[in-house]
C-alpha cells in the first residue's frame, strides 16, 4: 500500500470514530451515518487525487467542493421550521443553520432531534475531516492530527455535565493510533527500502511501529485521562443548563427554566437547595417562572416587560385578594438562578439585589437577567394562595388574561391527533373546570407512568410520544400535556416551573433538588391562574381539591359553555393545517435511540471484537498489497513476490519447501498446474538472479511479476476447500510463522 493511501485511510477511520464522540450531544444519531458517507467521500478524494500526485491545493479544493455540495444536497432533504418548499435553496440552507444554532442555544444535551443541528454536525465533521486530512496527508504533520478530532471530543466533554465516558476518549485514541501506525509504517517503509530481508518484513517491522505508537499514545492518554477526569466535571459553561456534575461544588444553576428539569431530577445526590418557613399550613409551591408560549418547540418563555418595585400589581384575573396573606421566609442554600423562587401569587417581597417583576406572570427576575448565585440569600415574601372552591371553580368560565395573545393561542400546526385526544377526553365534561379536571384525571390515571426516561423528542413530537405512545414521562411531560390540552379546549394555560413544597421538619420546610417541578396553570375568569397537578400522586401526593370533580359539582352551568371563547373557532380541525411534514415518523426507531448509549457501547465492543478478528486478515492483506504494489527496486519486488508466494502456501496449510529458489521452484512446480508451474519457475529464476547474479537482469519480466504471483496464488488456492480458504483469510498462518534465523 502506498504511504498516501495508508494515511488517507487512517484519517478516514480516525474521523469516523471521532464523530461518534458527539453522539451524546443529541438524541438523534442519524447524523453519524450521513457524516460517515461524507467522510468516506472526502477520504476517497484524498486517496485518489494524491495517488495521481495532484497538489494539496487541488485536493483541498476538491474536498471543499464535495463538502459544500454534500452539505447543500443534505439541506434539501431536511426540513427547516422557518422555510417551506417555495423558499430558495440558499435561504433554506441559511434558515437550517439558523434553526440549528438556535436549537443548540436553547436546548440542553442531549438535544432533541433537529434537522438544522444535523446539518451543522455533518458539515462541521466534514470540515474536521478535511482539516485532519490536510494535516496528515497534506502538510505531513500526522502528530497534530489529534487536534481536529479532539475538538469534536471537547464539545461534549465541556458541554455535558455528566461524564463523557471513556468510550468517547477511546474513539479518539483509536483513531489517532491508526494515524500514528499508518505514519509509522510509512516511515518504516522508507527505512527498510534497500534492505531486502525477506523474513524481517511484515510483523518484523509492523510490530515495533505498533508498540511505539501505542507508547506515544498510552502515556499522554493516561496522564490526559487522569487530568481531564479531575478537571472536566467541574467545568460548566454558562447558558448550557443546570451545570453541576457529580462532585462539583458550584451551586445548582438555572438560567432557563425550560432546560432540563430532568437532569435535576436525575441528580445522583439529593441535596437541599432551599429551606423556608411559612404560615401556609401545607407549604407552598415555589414558582420560578411560567412558560406561556406553546409552539412547535414546546413550551417556552416570551419577552416580558420588567418593572421594578417590591409590591406586585394586582393578581391577574382577580379583582380582590382571596383569603389572607401568607408570609414565607426563604433561605436559599445552594441555588443559582435569574428567577426568584416565590409562592404564587406573591404580593410583596423583600430581597437583596436588584429584582424586577413581570406583571402578567408575577415572576420576579434578576435585573441583569442573568443567573445569580443566590446562596445565603434570605428573603421574605407575602403571598396569597389561589385555592378556589371546587364548586365555584366549576361555575367559572375560562377567562381572557391580559396576555391572551400568548396564553390562549392554539398553535395552528398542532397535530390533529393531539387536538382530537383533548376533545375526546373532555367530551363528557360540560364546564371548563370539569374539562380541566377530566384532563388531569386522565393524566393521573394509571395509563400514565412517572418516569424520567421518556421517549426522546421535542415539541409536538414529545407530546405525541407522551400522550399517544409510551405514556411515560415526568412532571414536564404531564404539565405540558395538560396545559396543551387545556388550551385546545379553550382554557388559557401556561406551564410553571419551580419546586414542590418539599418536606417539613421542625425548622420549617426543606426543598431538595429533586423537588424541582413543573405544573400547569389554567386561567379562569374571576379566579386567575389556578394551579393544577396532573403529575401522579407518587410524586405530588393527592391532587388539589379544586382540581377534582366532585359528584355534586357535576351539574354544570350551561352558561359556562365557552362559546364566546376567543379561541373557540380554532378548535375545528379544519383550521389547524396539517403539519405532516413536520412530524417526525419512525417512533420505534426513536425508542431504540433512547437506549442509544447502551447500544453504542455494545456496538463499540462488537466493533472492537470485529477489529480484533479482522486484524490478522487486514494485516495479511496489507502486507500482500505492500508486496505486490510494484514499487521499489526490482530485487525487492522479486523478494516480496517470493515471500508472498511462500506466505500464501503457508496460509493454505501447505509446507514451504526447503532449499534454494530453484529447488523450491521445482518442488512447487510439481504441486501446480502447467501454466502456474511455468510462472513458478520463472519467478524462482528471477529470485535466483536477484540474489546470486552479479547484476539483476530481469529481462523485462518485472512487469509480469504481479500477474505471475497472482496466478501462482490462485494455483495454490485452487485445491483448497472452503474451510481452508476461510482459515487462510481470517487466520493466515504465515503471520505467525517463526522468523527463521541463520545457524
Amino acid at each position, binding site marked *: 500500500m502506498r504511504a498516501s493511501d495508508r494515511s488517507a485511510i487512517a484519517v478516514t477511520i480516525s474521523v469516523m470514530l471521532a464523530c461518534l464522540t458527539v453522539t451524546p450531544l443529541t438524541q438523534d444519531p442519524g447524523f453519524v451515518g450521513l457524516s460517515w458517507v461524507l467522510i468516506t467521500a472526502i477520504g476517497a478524494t484524498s486517496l485518489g487525487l494524491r495517488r495521481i500526485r495532484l497538489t494539496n491545493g487541488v485536493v483541498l479544493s476538491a474536498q471543499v467542493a464535495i463538502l459544500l455540495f454534500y452539505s447543500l444536497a443534505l439541506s434539501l432533504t431536511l426540513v427547516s421550521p422557518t422555510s417551506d418548499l417555495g423558499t430558495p435553496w440558499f435561504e433554506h440552507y441559511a434558515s437550517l443553520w439558523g434553526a440549528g444554532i438556535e436549537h443548540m442555544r436553547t436546548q440542553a444535551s442531549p438535544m432533541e432531534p433537529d434537522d438544522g443541528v444535523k446539518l451543522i454536525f455533518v458539515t462541521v465533521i466534514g470540515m474536521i475531516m478535511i482539516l485532519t486530512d490536510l494535516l496528515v496527508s497534506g502538510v505531513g504533520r500526522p502528530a497534530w492530527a489529534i487536534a481536529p478530532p479532539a475538538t469534536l471530543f471537547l464539545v461534549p466533554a465541556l458541554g455535558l455535565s455528566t461524564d463523557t465516558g471513556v468510550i468517547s476518549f477511546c474513539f479518539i485514541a483509536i483513531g489517532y493510533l491508526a494515524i500514528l501506525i499508518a505514519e509509522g509504517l510509512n516511515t518504516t517503509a522508507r527505512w527498510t527500502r534497500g534492505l531486502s530481508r*525477506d523474513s524481517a518484513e511484515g510483523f518484523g517491522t509492523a510490530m515495533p511501529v505498533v508498540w511505539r505508537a501505542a507508547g506515544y499514545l498510552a502515556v499522554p492518554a493516561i496522564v490526559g485521562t487522569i487530568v481531564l477526569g479531575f478537571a472536566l466535571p467541574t467545568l460548566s459553561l454558562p447558558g448550557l443548563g443546570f451545570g453541576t456534575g457529580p462532585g462539583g461544588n458550584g451551586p445548582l444553576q438555572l438560567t432557563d427554566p425550560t432546560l432540563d428539569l430532568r437532569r435535576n431530577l436525575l441528580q445522583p445526590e439529593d441535596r437541599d437547595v432551599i429551606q423556608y418557613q411559612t404560615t401556609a399550613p401545607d407549604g407552598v409551591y415555589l414558582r420560578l417562572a411560567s412558560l406561556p408560549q406553546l409552539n412547535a418547540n414546546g413550551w417556552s418563555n416570551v419577552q416580558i416587560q420588567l418593572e421594578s418595585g417590591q409590591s406586585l400589581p394586582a393578581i391577574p384575573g382577580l379583582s380582590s385578594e382571596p383569603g389572607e396573606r401568607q408570609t414565607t421566609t426563604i433561605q436559599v442554600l445552594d441555588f443559582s438562578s435569574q428567577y426568584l423562587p416565590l409562592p404564587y401569587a406573591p404580593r410583596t417581597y423583600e430581597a437583596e439585589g436588584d429584582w424586577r417583576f413581570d406583571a402578567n406572570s408575577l415572576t420576579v427576575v434578576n435585573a441583569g437577567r442573568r443567573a445569580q448565585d443566590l446562596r445565603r440569600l434570605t428573603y421574605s415574601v407575602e403571598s396569597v394562595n389561589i385555592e378556589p372552591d371546587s364548586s365555584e371553580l366549576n361555575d367559572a368560565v375560562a377567562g381572557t388574561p391580559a396576555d391572551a395573545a400568548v396564553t390562549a393561542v392554539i398553535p395552528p400546526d398542532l397535530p390533529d391527533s393531539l387536538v382530537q385526544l383533548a376533545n375526546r377526553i373532555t367530551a363528557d365534561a360540560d364546564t371548563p373546570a370539569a374539562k380541566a379536571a377530566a384532563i388531569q384525571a386522565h393524566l393521573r390515571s394509571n395509563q400514565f407512568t412517572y418516569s424520567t426516561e421518556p421517549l426522546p423528542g421535542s415539541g409536538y413530537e414529545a407530546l405525541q410520544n407522551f400522550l399517544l405512545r409510551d405514556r411515560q414521562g415526568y412532571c414536564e411531560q404531564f404539565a405540558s400535556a395538560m396545559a396543551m390540552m387545556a388550551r385546545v379546549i379553550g382554557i388559557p394555560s401556561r406551564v410553571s416551573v419551580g419546586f414542590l413544597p418539599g418536606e417539613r421538619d421542625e425548622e420549617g420546610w426543606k426543598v431538595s433538588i429533586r423537588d424541582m417541578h413543573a405544573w400547569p396553570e389554567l386561567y379562569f375568569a374571576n379566579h386567575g391562574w389556578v394551579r393544577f397537578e396532573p403529575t401522579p400522586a407518587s410524586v405530588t401526593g393527592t391532587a388539589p381539591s379544586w382540581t377534582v370533580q366532585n359528584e355534586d359539582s357535576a351539574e354544570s352551568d350551561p352558561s359556562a359553555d365557552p362559546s364566546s371563547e376567543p379561541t373557540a373557532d380554532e378548535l375545528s380541525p379544519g383550521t389547524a393545517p396539517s403539519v405532516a411534514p413536520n412530524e417526525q415518523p419512525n417512533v420505534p426507531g426513536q425508542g431504540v435511540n433512547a437506549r442509544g448509549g447502551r447500544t453504542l457501547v455494545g456496538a463499540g465492543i462488537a466493533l472492537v471484537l470485529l477489529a480484533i478478528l479482522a486484524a490478522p486478515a487486514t494485516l495479511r492483506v496489507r502486507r500482500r498489497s505492500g508486496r505486490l504494489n510494484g514499487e521499489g527496486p526490482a*530485487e525487492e519486488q522479486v523478494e516480496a513476490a517470493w515471500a508472498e508466494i511462500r506466505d500464501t502456501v503457508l496460509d493454505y496449510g501447505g509446507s514451504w519447501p526447503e532449499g*534454494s529458489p530453484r529447488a523450491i521452484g521445482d518442488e512447487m512446480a510439481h504441486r501446480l498446474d502447467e501454466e502456474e508451474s511455468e510462472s513458478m519457475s520463472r519467478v524462482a529464476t528471477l529470485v535466483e538472479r536477484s540474489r546470486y547474479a552479479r547484476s539483476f537482469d530481469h529481462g523485462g519480466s518485472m512487469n509480469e511479476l504481479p500477474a505471475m504471483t497472482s496466478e501462482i496464488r490462485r494455483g495454490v488456492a485452487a485445491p483448497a476447500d472452503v474451510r481452508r480458504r476461510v482459515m487462510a483469510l481470517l487466520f493466515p498462518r504465515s503471520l505467525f510463522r517463526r522468523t527463521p534465523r*541463520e545457524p
Partner: protein
Amino acid sequence: MSLGYEKAAEIGHSPERAYSLGDVVQVMGNVRHAMESVIEGKRSSVDLALVVLLAEGHLLVEDVPGVGKTMLAKALGRSIACSVRRVQFTPDLLPSDITGVSVFNQETRDFEFKPGGIFANIVVGDEINRASPKTQSALLESMEERQVSVDGTTYRLESPFMVVATQNPIEMEGTYPLPEAQRDRFMARIQMGYPTPNSELDMLESHGSSDPLAALHPVTDGSTIRGLIEAVKNVYVSPAVKHYIVQMVNATRNSRDLRLGASPRATLQLLRASRAFAAMSGRDYVTPDDVAALGVSVLAHRVLPSTDAQLARRTVTDVIAQAIQSVHIPDRR
C-alpha cells in the same frame, strides 16, 4: 551437433579470442554428446569430468573394474583435439617415467630432456594406486604445480592440463592406496557405479560389434578449451554463495561423523568447480544449487569418517550429503 575434426582444428588455429558462456554451453554440449556416444547413461559423470576440465582440476575416477573408468578418461581425451597420454601405473613405474628424464645425446654431446608421460593436455593415469608412493608423489607434485623440474630445469606444462586418474578400491593386494593428503589434490572424485539395465542394453548394441571409441572424433581442441577456461573465470560468485561454500566446508570439519574435514584447498576447488558448473548451465553466476550439486563429488574423497560413523556403517557420501543439507541456503544477496 557434432563438429568434425577439421572444423575443430580450424577453431584451434584461430587466434586466441574471448569466449562467451554461450560458447561454453555449446562446446561442452558437443563434447558431452561425443563422450556419451561411448559412455552410456553416465551423464552426471561426464558432466563432472567436463566441470573439472573447465575448472582446471584433476579427476579421480574410483570404482570397481569394468564400469568404464578408463573408457570415460579415454573418451574425454578423444573428444578434444589435444595431446592425450595414458600412463599405466604399475609397481615398477618410476618417477622419471612420469616426469621425463635427461638423456645424454651422443651427437650433440649434451643432455637432452625426454619428456615423460605427464607432458600432455590430458593425462590418463590408469590404476594410480598400483604405483609406488614415490611415483605417485611425482605425479601429484606435477599435478599441483603444473610444472616439472628435472635436473634443475623447470618445464611448464601446457594448459589445459588435466589428470584423470582411475583407482580400483577393492583390489587391495599389491596396491598403494592414495593417502588422504594426496587425494586432496584431485578436484573431484567420480564413482561411476553400474549402468542402468537400459544403458547396459544400449551398451551391448553399440559396443557389441564395433568400437565406438575408435569412431569418436574430436569436437574441439586445446586452445578452445583454454579460452573456455578463461571464460569460466568470469562467472560471478556472490558473497552469499561464497559464504555458503565456506559454511559447507566448515560443516565437514565440525561434523561428528568425520575424523578429518575438508581442507581450505577444497574450499577453493569447490568454488572453481561451481563456477564451471554454472557456466556449463549457461549461467554467469553461481547458485547454491551448483555448489550443493558438486559438494559430494568435490568433498567426499578428502575426508575421513570417524570410527563411530564407520561402526554405524555410514558412508562418507551420506555424511557429506547430510552436512551439505545442514547448511542454510542463503536467501539474500
